[in-house]
Protein backbone atom coordinates (compact mmCIF):
# COMPACT_ATOMS: atom_id res chain seq x y z
CA UNK A 1 0.00 0.00 0.00
CA UNK A 2 1.12 3.52 -0.80
CA UNK A 3 2.79 4.93 2.31
CA UNK A 4 0.92 8.24 2.15
CA UNK A 5 -2.47 6.55 1.97
CA UNK A 6 -1.50 4.24 4.80
CA UNK A 7 -0.44 7.23 6.91
CA UNK A 8 -3.70 9.02 6.21
CA UNK A 9 -5.64 5.90 7.16
CA UNK A 10 -3.75 5.57 10.42
CA UNK A 11 -4.58 9.18 11.27
CA UNK A 12 -8.23 8.66 10.35
CA UNK A 13 -8.49 5.61 12.56
CA UNK A 14 -6.57 7.15 15.45
CA UNK A 15 -8.14 10.61 15.64
CA UNK A 16 -11.40 9.51 17.31
CA UNK A 17 -9.21 7.47 19.64
CA UNK A 18 -7.25 10.57 20.57
CA UNK A 19 -10.47 12.32 21.56
CA UNK A 20 -11.72 9.27 23.45
CA UNK A 21 -8.32 9.21 25.13
CA UNK A 22 -8.56 12.79 26.33
CA UNK A 23 -12.10 12.20 27.64
CA UNK A 24 -10.72 9.18 29.48
CA UNK A 25 -7.93 11.40 30.82
CA UNK A 26 -10.51 13.86 32.12
CA UNK A 27 -12.45 11.03 33.77
CA UNK A 28 -9.33 9.70 35.48
CA UNK A 29 -8.38 13.16 36.74
CA UNK A 30 -11.91 13.53 38.11
CA UNK A 31 -11.77 10.17 39.89
CA UNK A 32 -8.69 11.40 41.78
CA UNK A 33 -10.06 14.87 42.38
CA UNK A 34 -13.68 14.61 43.47
CA UNK A 35 -15.41 13.20 46.52
CA UNK A 36 -19.03 12.44 47.34
CA UNK A 37 -20.94 15.40 48.76
CA UNK A 38 -24.53 15.15 49.98
CA UNK A 39 -26.65 13.50 47.33
CA UNK A 40 -23.96 14.02 44.65
CA UNK A 41 -22.12 10.69 44.58
CA UNK A 42 -19.10 9.68 42.53
CA UNK A 43 -21.30 7.70 40.12
CA UNK A 44 -22.37 11.03 38.64
CA UNK A 45 -18.93 11.40 37.05
CA UNK A 46 -19.58 8.37 34.85
CA UNK A 47 -20.85 9.45 31.43
CA UNK A 48 -23.61 7.74 29.49
CA UNK A 49 -23.15 7.37 25.74
CA UNK A 50 -24.89 10.67 24.91
CA UNK A 51 -22.70 12.61 27.34
CA UNK A 52 -19.57 10.87 26.09
CA UNK A 53 -20.29 11.50 22.40
CA UNK A 54 -21.35 15.12 23.00
CA UNK A 55 -18.23 15.87 25.09
CA UNK A 56 -15.92 14.33 22.52
CA UNK A 57 -17.70 16.18 19.71
CA UNK A 58 -17.47 19.55 21.51
CA UNK A 59 -13.77 19.03 22.27
CA UNK A 60 -12.99 18.25 18.62
CA UNK A 61 -14.57 19.13 15.29
CA UNK A 62 -18.16 18.34 16.18
CA UNK A 63 -20.26 15.20 15.89
CA UNK A 64 -19.82 12.57 13.23
CA UNK A 65 -23.00 11.59 11.36
CA UNK A 66 -22.85 8.23 13.08
CA UNK A 67 -22.64 9.79 16.56
CA UNK A 68 -25.50 12.17 15.76
CA UNK A 69 -27.74 9.29 14.66
CA UNK A 70 -26.85 7.27 17.76
CA UNK A 71 -27.64 10.13 20.13
CA UNK A 72 -30.97 10.96 18.52
CA UNK A 73 -32.06 7.29 18.45
CA UNK A 74 -31.06 6.58 22.06
CA UNK A 75 -32.83 9.67 23.38
CA UNK A 76 -35.94 9.24 21.28
CA UNK A 77 -36.24 5.74 22.69
CA UNK A 78 -35.98 7.20 26.22
CA UNK A 79 -39.05 9.45 25.85
CA UNK A 80 -42.17 8.31 27.70
CA UNK A 81 -45.46 9.92 26.82
CA UNK A 82 -47.83 10.54 29.76
CA UNK A 83 -49.31 7.21 30.81
CA UNK A 84 -52.92 8.46 30.98
CA UNK A 85 -52.66 10.54 27.79
CA UNK A 86 -53.07 13.74 29.79
CA UNK A 87 -50.42 16.30 28.89
CA UNK A 88 -51.60 19.20 31.01
CA UNK A 89 -51.58 20.30 34.65
CA UNK A 90 -51.67 23.65 36.42
CA UNK A 91 -49.78 26.63 34.92
CA UNK A 92 -49.40 28.24 38.35
CA UNK A 93 -47.47 25.25 39.64
CA UNK A 94 -45.63 25.22 36.32
CA UNK A 95 -44.56 28.80 36.91
CA UNK A 96 -43.11 27.92 40.30
CA UNK A 97 -41.19 25.03 38.72
CA UNK A 98 -39.87 27.35 35.97
CA UNK A 99 -38.64 29.78 38.66
CA UNK A 100 -37.05 27.24 41.00
CA UNK A 101 -33.31 26.71 40.52
CA UNK A 102 -32.58 24.16 43.22
CA UNK A 103 -32.61 20.39 43.06
CA UNK A 104 -30.01 17.61 42.82
CA UNK A 105 -27.09 19.82 43.93
CA UNK A 106 -24.93 18.48 46.75
CA UNK A 107 -26.25 21.36 48.86
CA UNK A 108 -29.94 20.61 48.20
CA UNK A 109 -32.34 18.64 50.39
CA UNK A 110 -33.01 15.42 48.45
CA UNK A 111 -36.49 15.20 50.03
CA UNK A 112 -37.61 18.37 48.24
CA UNK A 113 -38.68 18.19 44.58
CA UNK A 114 -36.27 19.74 42.06
CA UNK A 115 -37.12 22.80 40.03
CA UNK A 116 -36.87 23.12 36.27
CA UNK A 117 -34.92 26.39 36.47
CA UNK A 118 -36.27 27.35 33.01
CA UNK A 119 -35.67 31.05 33.64
CA UNK A 120 -31.94 30.45 34.06
CA UNK A 121 -31.77 30.10 30.27
CA UNK A 122 -35.09 31.16 28.71
CA UNK A 123 -37.28 34.22 28.53
CA UNK A 124 -40.86 33.14 29.30
CA UNK A 125 -43.50 35.49 30.76
CA UNK A 126 -43.00 39.14 29.82
CA UNK A 127 -43.32 40.17 33.47
CA UNK A 128 -40.22 38.21 34.53
CA UNK A 129 -37.24 40.25 33.45
CA UNK A 130 -34.59 38.14 35.21
CA UNK A 131 -34.19 35.57 32.47
CA UNK A 132 -31.10 34.02 30.91
CA UNK A 133 -30.13 33.84 27.25
CA UNK A 134 -28.50 30.43 26.80
CA UNK A 135 -31.73 29.03 25.34
CA UNK A 136 -34.19 30.63 22.89
CA UNK A 137 -36.93 32.98 24.09
CA UNK A 138 -40.18 31.18 24.91
CA UNK A 139 -42.21 34.37 25.23
CA UNK A 140 -45.75 33.73 23.86
CA UNK A 141 -44.79 30.08 23.29
CA UNK A 142 -48.37 28.81 23.08
CA UNK A 143 -49.84 31.95 21.59
CA UNK A 144 -47.48 31.68 18.62
CA UNK A 145 -47.85 27.93 18.10
CA UNK A 146 -51.35 27.02 19.26
CA UNK A 147 -51.92 23.68 20.95
CA UNK A 148 -52.56 21.23 18.17
CA UNK A 149 -51.63 17.63 18.97
CA UNK A 150 -48.32 17.78 17.05
CA UNK A 151 -47.27 20.88 19.03
CA UNK A 152 -48.34 19.29 22.32
CA UNK A 153 -46.51 16.08 21.50
CA UNK A 154 -43.38 17.93 20.36
CA UNK A 155 -43.31 20.14 23.46
CA UNK A 156 -43.66 17.14 25.76
CA UNK A 157 -40.81 15.37 24.01
CA UNK A 158 -38.51 18.39 24.23
CA UNK A 159 -39.21 18.80 27.95
CA UNK A 160 -38.86 15.08 28.57
CA UNK A 161 -35.69 14.68 26.57
CA UNK A 162 -34.53 17.61 24.44
CA UNK A 163 -31.68 15.49 23.09
CA UNK A 164 -34.22 13.45 21.13
CA UNK A 165 -34.56 16.50 18.85
CA UNK A 166 -31.38 18.54 19.39
CA UNK A 167 -28.56 16.05 19.85
CA UNK A 168 -26.15 17.88 22.15
CA UNK A 169 -28.31 20.74 23.37
CA UNK A 170 -27.38 22.31 26.72
CA UNK A 171 -30.93 21.60 27.89
CA UNK A 172 -31.19 18.87 30.53
CA UNK A 173 -33.29 15.77 29.85
CA UNK A 174 -35.84 16.58 32.51
CA UNK A 175 -37.99 13.45 32.15
CA UNK A 176 -35.56 10.71 31.26
CA UNK A 177 -32.99 11.82 33.85
CA UNK A 178 -35.67 11.96 36.53
CA UNK A 179 -35.18 15.67 37.30
CA UNK A 180 -38.92 16.43 37.03
CA UNK A 181 -41.71 13.88 37.45
CA UNK A 182 -44.65 13.45 35.10
CA UNK A 183 -46.95 15.77 37.04
CA UNK A 184 -44.31 18.51 37.14
CA UNK A 185 -43.87 18.15 33.39
CA UNK A 186 -47.64 18.50 32.89
CA UNK A 187 -47.54 21.69 34.97
CA UNK A 188 -44.71 23.14 32.88
CA UNK A 189 -46.63 22.15 29.72
CA UNK A 190 -49.54 24.27 30.95
CA UNK A 191 -47.24 27.17 31.78
CA UNK A 192 -46.02 27.08 28.15
CA UNK A 193 -49.27 26.32 26.35
CA UNK A 194 -52.28 27.37 28.46
CA UNK A 195 -53.85 30.52 26.96
CA UNK A 196 -54.34 31.80 30.55
CA UNK A 197 -50.63 31.43 31.40
CA UNK A 198 -48.59 34.66 31.74
CA UNK A 199 -46.27 33.22 29.08
CA UNK A 200 -49.06 33.79 26.55
CA UNK A 201 -50.22 37.23 27.70
Amino acid at each position, binding site marked *: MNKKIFGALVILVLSPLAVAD*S*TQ*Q*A*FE*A*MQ*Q*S*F*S*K*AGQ*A*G*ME*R*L*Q*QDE*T*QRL*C*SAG*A*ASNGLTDDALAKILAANEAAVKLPADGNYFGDWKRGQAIAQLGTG*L*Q*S*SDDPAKPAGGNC*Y*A*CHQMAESE*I*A*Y*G*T*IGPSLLHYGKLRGNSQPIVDYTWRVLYNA*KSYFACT*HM*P*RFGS*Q*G*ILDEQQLRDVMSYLLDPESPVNQ
Partner: protein
Amino acid sequence: MKQRLWRVVSVAVMACMPFVVGAQQQEDPVAEYRELFGEDNPAELWEQRGEGLWREARGPKNVPLSSCDFGLGAGVVAGAYAQMPRYFADTGRVEDLESRLVTCMTTIQGFDRETVLRSRFGDGDKKSDLEALTAYIVGQSRGHTVDIKLQHPAEKVAYETGKSLFFYRAGPHDFSCASCHGESGKRIRLQSLPGLLEKKDAQFAFTTWPGYRVSQGELRTLEWRLADCFRQQRLPQLGYGSPAAVALVMFMAVNANGGKMDAPNLKR
Protein backbone atom coordinates in the same frame (compact mmCIF):
# COMPACT_ATOMS: atom_id res chain seq x y z
CA MET B 1 -3.29 53.58 56.84
CA LYS B 2 -5.75 52.91 59.67
CA GLN B 3 -8.06 55.64 58.41
CA ARG B 4 -8.04 54.22 54.92
CA LEU B 5 -8.87 50.81 56.32
CA TRP B 6 -11.86 52.21 58.19
CA ARG B 7 -13.07 53.84 55.04
CA VAL B 8 -12.88 50.46 53.28
CA VAL B 9 -14.75 48.79 56.14
CA SER B 10 -17.53 51.37 56.24
CA VAL B 11 -18.01 51.25 52.50
CA ALA B 12 -18.13 47.46 52.71
CA VAL B 13 -20.82 47.62 55.40
CA MET B 14 -22.86 50.05 53.32
CA ALA B 15 -22.62 47.81 50.29
CA CYS B 16 -23.95 44.90 52.28
CA MET B 17 -27.18 46.75 53.03
CA PRO B 18 -29.64 45.35 50.56
CA PHE B 19 -30.20 47.55 47.54
CA VAL B 20 -28.59 50.55 49.22
CA VAL B 21 -27.56 51.66 45.75
CA GLY B 22 -31.05 51.04 44.42
CA ALA B 23 -29.61 48.32 42.25
CA GLN B 24 -31.78 48.16 39.18
CA GLN B 25 -31.78 45.01 37.10
CA GLN B 26 -29.05 45.77 34.65
CA GLU B 27 -26.28 44.24 32.60
CA ASP B 28 -23.47 44.86 35.05
CA PRO B 29 -24.75 45.04 38.61
CA VAL B 30 -21.17 45.30 39.89
CA ALA B 31 -20.72 48.61 38.06
CA GLU B 32 -22.72 50.42 40.73
CA TYR B 33 -20.71 48.84 43.50
CA ARG B 34 -17.56 49.88 41.70
CA GLU B 35 -18.78 53.44 41.65
CA LEU B 36 -19.53 53.24 45.35
CA PHE B 37 -16.20 51.69 46.29
CA GLY B 38 -14.15 53.94 44.01
CA GLU B 39 -10.51 53.04 44.40
CA ASP B 40 -11.24 51.03 47.52
CA ASN B 41 -11.87 47.33 47.61
CA PRO B 42 -12.56 45.43 50.85
CA ALA B 43 -10.29 42.71 49.41
CA GLU B 44 -7.46 44.92 50.75
CA LEU B 45 -8.32 43.64 54.21
CA TRP B 46 -7.52 40.10 53.04
CA GLU B 47 -4.38 41.24 51.24
CA GLN B 48 -3.09 42.95 54.37
CA ARG B 49 -3.82 39.99 56.58
CA GLY B 50 -2.13 37.80 53.97
CA GLU B 51 0.98 39.97 53.98
CA GLY B 52 1.17 39.58 57.75
CA LEU B 53 0.79 35.80 57.47
CA TRP B 54 3.44 35.72 54.75
CA ARG B 55 6.04 37.39 56.98
CA GLU B 56 5.11 35.86 60.32
CA ALA B 57 6.90 32.84 61.85
CA ARG B 58 4.12 30.25 62.12
CA GLY B 59 3.26 26.59 62.33
CA PRO B 60 4.87 23.76 64.34
CA LYS B 61 8.26 24.73 62.87
CA ASN B 62 7.71 28.39 63.76
CA VAL B 63 9.19 29.79 60.56
CA PRO B 64 7.92 32.27 57.99
CA LEU B 65 6.95 31.17 54.48
CA SER B 66 9.74 33.24 52.98
CA SER B 67 11.57 30.25 51.47
CA CYS B 68 8.45 29.26 49.51
CA ASP B 69 9.24 29.21 45.79
CA PHE B 70 6.42 30.13 43.41
CA GLY B 71 8.60 29.51 40.38
CA LEU B 72 10.69 32.69 40.30
CA GLY B 73 12.97 31.75 43.20
CA ALA B 74 12.59 31.34 46.97
CA GLY B 75 10.41 34.07 48.44
CA VAL B 76 9.90 35.96 45.16
CA VAL B 77 6.27 37.02 44.99
CA ALA B 78 6.34 39.97 42.56
CA GLY B 79 4.90 38.76 39.26
CA ALA B 80 4.94 35.10 40.35
CA TYR B 81 1.19 34.52 40.05
CA ALA B 82 1.12 35.72 36.43
CA GLN B 83 3.25 32.68 35.54
CA MET B 84 1.26 30.08 37.44
CA PRO B 85 0.23 27.25 37.36
CA ARG B 86 3.59 25.70 36.62
CA TYR B 87 5.60 22.54 37.18
CA PHE B 88 7.58 22.31 40.42
CA ALA B 89 10.52 19.94 40.54
CA ASP B 90 10.39 19.59 44.34
CA THR B 91 6.90 18.06 44.30
CA GLY B 92 7.09 16.66 40.77
CA ARG B 93 3.66 18.17 40.08
CA VAL B 94 2.01 21.08 38.35
CA GLU B 95 0.62 23.40 41.02
CA ASP B 96 -1.56 26.49 40.94
CA LEU B 97 -0.98 29.18 43.57
CA GLU B 98 -3.48 27.72 45.99
CA SER B 99 -2.11 24.17 45.93
CA ARG B 100 1.44 25.58 46.07
CA LEU B 101 0.56 27.47 49.24
CA VAL B 102 -0.70 24.24 50.82
CA THR B 103 2.59 22.58 49.82
CA CYS B 104 4.64 25.37 51.43
CA MET B 105 2.52 25.58 54.60
CA THR B 106 2.92 21.83 55.14
CA THR B 107 6.55 21.31 54.10
CA ILE B 108 8.10 24.58 55.33
CA GLN B 109 5.97 25.42 58.35
CA GLY B 110 4.93 21.89 59.29
CA PHE B 111 1.18 22.51 59.26
CA ASP B 112 -1.10 19.49 58.98
CA ARG B 113 -2.55 19.27 55.47
CA GLU B 114 -6.04 18.29 56.58
CA THR B 115 -6.19 21.15 59.08
CA VAL B 116 -5.10 23.68 56.45
CA LEU B 117 -7.67 22.35 53.96
CA ARG B 118 -10.48 22.34 56.48
CA SER B 119 -10.39 26.14 56.63
CA ARG B 120 -9.68 26.70 52.92
CA PHE B 121 -12.76 28.92 52.53
CA GLY B 122 -13.59 31.59 55.09
CA ASP B 123 -17.03 32.20 56.52
CA GLY B 124 -17.75 35.27 58.66
CA ASP B 125 -15.55 35.18 61.76
CA LYS B 126 -13.97 31.94 60.61
CA LYS B 127 -11.12 33.37 58.57
CA SER B 128 -9.14 31.38 56.05
CA ASP B 129 -5.36 31.81 56.03
CA LEU B 130 -5.22 30.33 52.54
CA GLU B 131 -7.61 32.97 51.18
CA ALA B 132 -5.63 35.79 52.79
CA LEU B 133 -2.29 34.48 51.54
CA THR B 134 -3.75 33.94 48.06
CA ALA B 135 -5.11 37.49 48.02
CA TYR B 136 -1.73 38.91 49.03
CA ILE B 137 0.36 36.95 46.56
CA VAL B 138 -2.02 37.48 43.62
CA GLY B 139 -2.00 41.20 44.48
CA GLN B 140 1.79 41.19 44.03
CA SER B 141 1.20 40.44 40.32
CA ARG B 142 -1.11 43.40 39.72
CA GLY B 143 -0.20 44.92 36.34
CA HIS B 144 1.85 41.89 35.31
CA THR B 145 1.02 40.12 32.06
CA VAL B 146 -0.30 36.57 32.25
CA ASP B 147 2.46 34.51 30.67
CA ILE B 148 2.05 30.75 30.81
CA LYS B 149 4.72 29.16 28.68
CA LEU B 150 3.70 25.47 28.82
CA GLN B 151 7.33 24.36 28.69
CA HIS B 152 7.38 21.27 30.89
CA PRO B 153 5.61 18.18 29.47
CA ALA B 154 3.56 17.93 32.68
CA GLU B 155 2.30 21.47 32.07
CA LYS B 156 1.15 20.47 28.59
CA VAL B 157 -0.63 17.43 30.02
CA ALA B 158 -2.35 19.64 32.61
CA TYR B 159 -3.53 22.00 29.87
CA GLU B 160 -4.88 19.14 27.72
CA THR B 161 -6.59 17.55 30.72
CA GLY B 162 -8.09 20.93 31.62
CA LYS B 163 -9.39 21.31 28.12
CA SER B 164 -11.13 17.92 28.12
CA LEU B 165 -12.49 18.60 31.61
CA PHE B 166 -13.95 21.87 30.29
CA PHE B 167 -16.03 19.91 27.76
CA TYR B 168 -16.78 16.91 30.00
CA ARG B 169 -20.55 16.55 30.35
CA ALA B 170 -21.86 14.49 33.24
CA GLY B 171 -24.41 14.28 36.03
CA PRO B 172 -28.21 14.33 35.91
CA HIS B 173 -28.26 17.66 34.03
CA ASP B 174 -25.58 16.81 31.40
CA PHE B 175 -23.69 20.00 32.27
CA SER B 176 -20.05 20.77 31.49
CA CYS B 177 -18.11 24.01 32.04
CA ALA B 178 -18.86 24.72 28.37
CA SER B 179 -22.63 24.66 29.02
CA CYS B 180 -22.35 28.13 30.56
CA HIS B 181 -18.88 29.29 29.51
CA GLY B 182 -18.52 27.95 25.98
CA GLU B 183 -19.88 31.07 24.30
CA SER B 184 -19.49 34.78 24.99
CA GLY B 185 -22.37 37.18 25.51
CA LYS B 186 -24.69 34.75 27.32
CA ARG B 187 -26.17 35.09 30.76
CA ILE B 188 -27.88 32.99 33.45
CA ARG B 189 -30.84 34.97 34.75
CA LEU B 190 -29.21 38.44 34.80
CA GLN B 191 -25.69 37.27 35.48
CA SER B 192 -23.33 37.72 32.51
CA LEU B 193 -21.13 34.71 31.84
CA PRO B 194 -17.58 34.91 30.54
CA GLY B 195 -17.05 32.72 27.46
CA LEU B 196 -13.78 31.14 28.50
CA LEU B 197 -12.82 30.03 24.99
CA GLU B 198 -12.58 33.62 23.78
CA LYS B 199 -9.47 35.57 24.65
CA LYS B 200 -11.06 38.78 25.84
CA ASP B 201 -13.51 37.05 28.19
CA ALA B 202 -10.94 34.52 29.38
CA GLN B 203 -8.51 37.34 30.19
CA PHE B 204 -11.17 39.29 32.04
CA ALA B 205 -12.20 36.26 34.09
CA PHE B 206 -8.72 35.02 34.94
CA THR B 207 -7.21 38.40 35.76
CA THR B 208 -10.00 39.43 38.15
CA TRP B 209 -9.97 36.44 40.55
CA PRO B 210 -9.71 36.36 43.53
CA GLY B 211 -12.48 38.85 44.14
CA TYR B 212 -14.36 40.39 47.01
CA ARG B 213 -17.85 38.94 46.57
CA VAL B 214 -20.22 41.77 47.47
CA SER B 215 -23.17 39.37 47.80
CA GLN B 216 -21.29 37.24 50.33
CA GLY B 217 -19.12 39.79 52.11
CA GLU B 218 -16.18 37.45 51.56
CA LEU B 219 -13.09 37.27 49.41
CA ARG B 220 -13.34 34.27 47.11
CA THR B 221 -10.54 32.58 45.18
CA LEU B 222 -10.49 30.94 41.77
CA GLU B 223 -10.56 27.47 43.35
CA TRP B 224 -13.67 28.48 45.29
CA ARG B 225 -15.26 29.62 42.03
CA LEU B 226 -14.47 26.31 40.31
CA ALA B 227 -15.73 24.19 43.22
CA ASP B 228 -18.99 26.14 43.33
CA CYS B 229 -19.45 25.76 39.57
CA PHE B 230 -19.21 21.97 39.97
CA ARG B 231 -21.76 22.10 42.79
CA GLN B 232 -24.13 23.85 40.38
CA GLN B 233 -23.26 21.26 37.72
CA ARG B 234 -24.75 18.70 40.17
CA LEU B 235 -21.41 16.91 40.44
CA PRO B 236 -19.61 15.77 43.58
CA GLN B 237 -17.16 18.03 45.38
CA LEU B 238 -14.01 19.21 43.61
CA GLY B 239 -10.96 18.71 45.82
CA TYR B 240 -8.96 21.86 46.60
CA GLY B 241 -5.64 21.78 44.75
CA SER B 242 -6.62 18.47 43.13
CA PRO B 243 -5.30 17.47 39.69
CA ALA B 244 -8.63 18.39 38.05
CA ALA B 245 -8.72 21.80 39.78
CA VAL B 246 -5.13 22.60 38.76
CA ALA B 247 -5.75 21.39 35.19
CA LEU B 248 -8.77 23.67 34.83
CA VAL B 249 -6.88 26.64 36.27
CA MET B 250 -4.12 25.87 33.74
CA PHE B 251 -6.62 25.78 30.88
CA MET B 252 -8.09 29.13 31.96
CA ALA B 253 -4.68 30.70 32.52
CA VAL B 254 -3.38 29.71 29.08
CA ASN B 255 -6.54 31.07 27.45
CA ALA B 256 -5.90 34.31 29.34
CA ASN B 257 -2.27 34.68 28.20
CA GLY B 258 -1.46 38.30 27.45
CA GLY B 259 -4.04 39.69 29.89
CA LYS B 260 -2.99 42.10 32.65
CA MET B 261 -3.51 40.93 36.22
CA ASP B 262 -5.97 43.12 38.13
CA ALA B 263 -6.80 41.10 41.22
CA PRO B 264 -8.00 40.84 43.90
CA ASN B 265 -10.95 42.49 42.20
CA LEU B 266 -14.58 43.10 43.02
CA LYS B 267 -17.31 40.58 42.20
CA ARG B 268 -21.10 40.61 42.31
